[in-house]
């Protein structure tokens, strides 16, 4: 049962990642790309972390997964912010055509 | 097809790519990166050599060697990059 739940969660998470990546490749400028990437990947990461947590053997492992999720989420949010900030300041981000 | 075969060929290929880069790159930074690729290729070869069909444990000695290689490479990279930065500073002030 746990395996099935985990598999579903991880598969869904992967779909979000793929969607985010497609957005990164297809969208026209930095802000749109960030929009696709951060949201989709944030959700994908959470789903995969949840799925892996179902497979984890000990509470300690679950705790570590939660920690990893927290820090990766915080780091990617910060990175997204930094990229957007740089793009806005330097004016490199928006495509004008 | 076992992982050691796949990744062994990967390692040799990465080494070869690094070789091309080290010989043809003109940009200083790119040449450093090419050398780093070569070192990752060499690391692959040793890690592959250490691999044993599970459940047998891998040979730990090459692992230790690769860790040493990684630390040595970061040291060499740092010195090369410091030289590059200093040269650029001198060149920029000479031009002004």
């Amino acid at each position, binding site marked *: 049962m746990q395996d099935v739940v985990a598999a579903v969660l991880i598969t869904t998470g992967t779909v979000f990642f793929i969607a985010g990546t497609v957005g990164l490749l297809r969208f026209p400028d930095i802000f749109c790309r960030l929009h696709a990437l951060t949201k989709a990947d944030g959700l994908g990461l959470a789903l995969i972390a949840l799925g892996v947590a179902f497979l984890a053997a000990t509470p300690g492992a679950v705790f570590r997964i939660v920690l990893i999720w927290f820090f990766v989420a915080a780091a990617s949010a910060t990175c997204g912010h930094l990229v957007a900030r740089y793009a806005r300041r330097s004016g490199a981000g928006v495509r004008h055509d | 097809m076992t992982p050691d075969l796949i990744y062994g060929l990967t390692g040799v290929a990465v080494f070869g790519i690094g070789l091309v880069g080290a010989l043809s790159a003109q940009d200083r930074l790119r040449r450093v990166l090419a050398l780093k690729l*070569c*070192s990752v290729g060499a690391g692959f070869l040793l890690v592959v050599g250490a691999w044993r069909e599970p459940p047998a444990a891998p040979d730990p000695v090459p692992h230790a060697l690769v860790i040493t290689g990684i630390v040595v490479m970061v040291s060499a990279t740092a*010195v090369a990059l410091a030289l590059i930065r200093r040269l650029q500073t001198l*060149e920029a002030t000479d031009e002004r």
Partner: protein
Amino acid sequence: MSVEISPMILSVFVPLFGAIAAFVLPRAAALIGFATLVLTSGAVAWLARDVLAAGAVGLPLGGWGAPLGIDLRADGLSVAMLALTSVVGFLVSIAALDSLKGPEQARQRQYFWPLWLLLLTGMNGVYLSTDIFNLYVMIEVIALAAVGLTVLSGSRAALQAGLDYMYASIFGALLFLMGVGFVYLQLGRLDFAGLTGAAPTGALIAALALIFVGLALKTALFPLHFWLPAAHANATAPASALLSGLVVKAALYVVLRLAQYMPFPSENLLTLVGLMGAGAVIWGGVQALRAERLKLLVAWSTVAQIGLIFVAFARAGEVGLSESWKAAALLILAHGIAKAAMFLAAGRIKDEIGHDVIRDLDRTPIRPTLAQFTFALAAISLIGLPPSLGFIGKWSLMEGAMAAGYWHWVGVTMAGTLLSVAYFSRVFAGFLRFDRVRAPVGEHQGWALADAAPLTLALMAIGLGLLAAPVLSFIEIGYPFGVAP
């Protein structure tokens, strides 16, 4: 509880502690450096006594023993290299004391000592090592310290040369590392004993090729010599003497040593090595003839001399490497001493005259006679005139080549000798001729302590030729290089 220490471990650890102390206490760096060199030389002398008394000695570090652990081993050849390093290093340090004494060189002085002592650690480590991965780490210690010494002056030319040297060095080390990987794949061990007697399979041939090319890059064998002239010509004089006299010898020593252990697939490969050497002799000689600056000429002469050592090494013939390595070893020792003397003398000449343009050497009223005399003495050994050590090395090379009927190697050696006579004559002409701009009275420079070190080195290069027989029998101690005892 008494600590029992072997002189082998001291030869590596004393310079290491010295480097640490010199880095932490920059104000006392010179003092620490000298104390370290004296102690290191003492350790090497102790080791030489042991080797003379007992033959080759070994030390299994950590008590594990090869192949799991790393063994140190000292035989005649390694002690000879250690002694060369100590003696040349000590004398170059004396010269460095003088040439780095100015107040504007405080910074150079502060960094010269830790870098040089780290270099010494690496070189002594190479000469005692019996494990190819350990050799890789040691040559990296040497590489980083040597690059640091190359760029000591901080000039743009030196930095550019240092960067090229760094690329060549890293690249060579990585080729070596890849070769180590192939050795492991085939043999599952990395000590010298494991290499002996292994059949030359594909992986080992690849390893041999990678390791050889990597080392050829490090020792600047033609056509991989491109980095050397600029690096050695643009460094400050003591650094040049260390780089040209000692650092390239470390990689040469590894070639010499590994050639005894690694299986050679065919003699043709050895001929190829000899051809590369011959190319270096000719090309290095021609470039030295064309060089406009004295230090550049000396640097190109290093390229030619390294080629000659490889020719000596390659004229194996029927007897194999068992004879030819001795000629190569003698030439390594001779070149190490004479080239250090020559670079120091060239540095003195440049300091006194203010430039080192060969064409204008005779246009200055200042005549640094002692440095010029030293330069000429060193040139005698490098050209290979009797009774110098260089002569003995060349003689042993030609004798072996003639005995084996390899007249082409004799021809290359002769051509190299003639070229060296020609390019050194360009310098001598500048020393001797007064006719172009006749200064009223050539101002002869007095005797300076700074000239003592290069002069001693040059005299050694000549005088050791008279002691060639004991030197030769010393480097044969522990031969054939077998398993660590």
